[in-house]
């Protein structure tokens, strides 16, 4: 990564920390410890299941909310505060600005997810008293959640590059919901006929696929995740994020900032 991108990324990360984004960790800690203690007292034999399901769901949802609400302001806020002009008047290219912002936000989310993961494993140790081999699959679920963040970050940046923060939030959140049901969308497309089938299939492949990235319920039951799925999901997240970032660069490159 070149020096300019690294500078923008670290500043984005610092800005997010200064904006108290990481305060969500407190809410997460309260939620998880509360659930671990409460469920242990009122239920039978599902404490571990609840900790994994609730913990990973919270990691995912908190991260998605942060990715959307921080991501949508990354470009528009810089324009609004006029700080973008200061940055671009230096030898920084527009595409470097976009890539730097992406890495900064992705870094924030990875750090956030890492802290939450420590919390999940801490709660797991509290309820189960020891780790078992299948608990390792929780790490794969966490990895998939981070891949999900990368896609959402890139989409938020894409929308942020041409739209207002409010509309960007609506677009990004809508795509997150649609992406969660993308497998259904592809099933519906497969059932359609003629021209509708082609259009529906194209749309189904264009929207992000988050359903394959969600293995929370299966890892909660200790079920393994195939290595092929790990490879293909990684590849998919990489390609999709790159595609959205290219879109953001193309738009931002041609945007009139005067």
């Amino acid at each position, binding site marked *: 990564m070149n020096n300019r991108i690294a500078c923008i990324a670290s500043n984005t990360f610092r800005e997010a920390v200064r904006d108290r984004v990481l305060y969500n960790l407190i809410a997460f800690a309260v939620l998880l410890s509360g659930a671990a203690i409460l469920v242990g007292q009122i239920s039978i034999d599902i404490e571990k299941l609840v900790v994994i399901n609730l913990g990973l769901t919270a990691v995912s949802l908190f991260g998605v909310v942060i990715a959307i609400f921080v991501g949508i302001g990354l470009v528009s806020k810089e324009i609004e505060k006029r700080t973008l002009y200061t940055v671009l008047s230096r030898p920084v290219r527009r595409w470097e600005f976009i890539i730097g912002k992406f890495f900064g936000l992705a870094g924030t989310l990875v750090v956030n997810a890492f802290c939450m993961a420590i919390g999940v494993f801490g709660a797991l140790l509290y309820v189960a008293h020891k780790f078992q081999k299948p608990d390792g699959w929780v790490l794969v679920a966490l990895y998939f959640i981070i891949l999900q963040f990368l896609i959402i970050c890139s989409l938020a940046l894409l929308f942020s590059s041409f739209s207002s923060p409010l509309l960007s939030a609506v677009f990004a959140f809508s795509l997150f919901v649609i992406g969660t049901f993308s*497998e259904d969308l*592809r099933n519906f497309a497969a059932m359609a006929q003629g021209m509708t089938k082609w259009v529906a299939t194209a749309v189904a492949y*264009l929207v992000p696929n988050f359903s394959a990235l969600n293995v929370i319920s299966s890892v909660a039951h200790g079920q393994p995740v*195939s290595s092929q*799925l790990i490879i293909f999901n990684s590849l998919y997240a990489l390609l*999709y994020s790159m595609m959205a970032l*290219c879109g953001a*660069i193309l738009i931002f*490159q041609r945007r009139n900032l005067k």
Partner: protein
Amino acid sequence: MNRSRTVTMTAGILLVACLAGSAAVLSRIDRLRTGATLEDVLFVSSPKAVKRMSLGYDGLLADIYWTRAVQYFGGRHEARASHYRLLAPLLAITTTLDPHLDVAYEFGANFLSPQPPNGAGMPDQATQLVEYGIRNNPDNWKLYYELGFIYYMDTKDYERAADAFLRGSKTPNAHPFLKVMAAQMAQHAGDTQMARALWTTTYQSSQEKQIRGNAVAHLRALQIADDVTALQELVGQYGQKTGQLPRSMADLVAANLLPAIPLDPSGRPYKLSPEGLVEVQVPDDFPFIEKGAPAGYKPPAPKNLEELGK
């Protein structure tokens, strides 16, 4: 080429390449995860809970669940599955979300009632579903007809079938045939003629190509059953007359037992097996065939029903 243009070109090429790449990878992921969606469908199996969670958007959610039910049935039917575990709960959720979704009762009962592989083999759940539909749509004569149909065809409970037809005949705009069916039920219960009349009414009263096609396919199977019974009797007569089995239908014509070689509903001539059994030439063309197929024949999933229903 200036720097800005180079960036635009590179980003554009990368965008297209990544889009193509992501679609290719996604199709590989889909192949790895076949069936995952529908098995995960019932995280919440309580219809009332789903209705509360719909936050008032129950109509839209009912449409989604109905589509899921169709997909689930279609997928398993295509795979000739032996069980349809999620079908009844999916239909229950659909109709709880929208109790006036008539199509869910009419099609749903047809999915639930017949024995596998043509349906889920759950006539009791099918009657429950239709009774629920009748409670919510008491003026819809088609639901009473559907109920009578299930009692007649699948549970062979002719008394209840007659009662359902009679109740239906009293609804406004009821098909006049319901009254006739209710009256004739006691006398002709179990007749092929009665079954033929029911399928004919189904064909005439529906605009859905799938339902009409299904009715035509059943009517063709009934026609074959009648033809095979009659022709088999002639084969017996030929045997008594000559002391040997006929080798082909031409022998029956030559013996003046038939005026011409008989044709099945698809227009192909019936044939004789070496054991002297009357058979159709292509049993796969008749998905609900009960007579006239070779011994041990397993029919494939019904196809092109929409074509038949045109």
